[in-house]
């Protein structure tokens, strides 16, 4: 797994920020900057929320089970 993180990370960084124009982008040009940000935010929010919740509950149950 370490190898893979090591290789992918620069990739991600480079691709996220390097290209100046994103042309086939519905949310970039014909609507406001705020819409773009809202889409970014909600995407990240919806993506991470269940993972965080399930991990928390899973860890809590696991620790409860270990105690008994």
């Amino acid at each position, binding site marked *: 797994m370490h190898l893979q993180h090591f290789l992918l990370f620069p990739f991600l960084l480079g691709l996220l920020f390097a290209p100046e124009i994103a042309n086939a982008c519905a949310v970039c040009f014909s*609507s*406001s900057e*705020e*819409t773009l*940000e*809202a*889409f970014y*935010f*909600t995407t990240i*929010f*919806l993506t991470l*929320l*269940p993972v965080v*919740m*399930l991990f928390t*509950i899973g860890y809590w*149950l696991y620790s*409860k*089970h270990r*105690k*008994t």
Partner: protein
Amino acid sequence: MTNPSSQSVLFAASEVSLTNRPKRAKPPVSSGVIGMLIFMVTEAMFFAGLISAYMVIRSGIEEWPPWGQPRLPVETTAFNTLVLLLSGLTMGFSRNLLQKQKFQEGRRLLGISLLLGTFFLVAQGYEWVQLLNFGMTVSSSVYGGLFYLIIGAHGFHVVGVLAVLIHAWNRLGASNNPITAEGLLPLQLLWYFVVCVWPVLYVLVYLT
């Protein structure tokens, strides 16, 4: 390997009296709580979906609230928010008392928090009536639609949880087969959820 109990074709007909019920160790977390937790994940995602919808639609509109639409009553709802939070608090105290076997006091405190919840509901309903009088309806603008959708979804949860809790409140005092503190916990969890979601919605819909 023969099987005496399978007389019926479709499903076994013989009924076995389970005198030897499972002697399992008591699970560390009760089934009700686990079930409620997983249900609350779904509920949280439901509200996350509504919040996302609100943010995306909101970001696409320059003037908020749109022209000709009333502003929302921030102050009265702030008071209402406090009432709801208080009811969450009394709910917590009532659980403490119930766990210490003080059923009468616990039941009374639970009743108080239910009254506070009902007050919240009635106040919200009054606010809706006023907003409707000002001409803000579901279809008057996407602003009205979002308001009634999100606040209505929360109100719907409040109604549902209140109804179940009132039933449980009755059962607490019942002479036969009364509900226990452990049995009440999942319902209380759902109430905490409803209480905790409200400030988020309040900040989102009323303040920003």
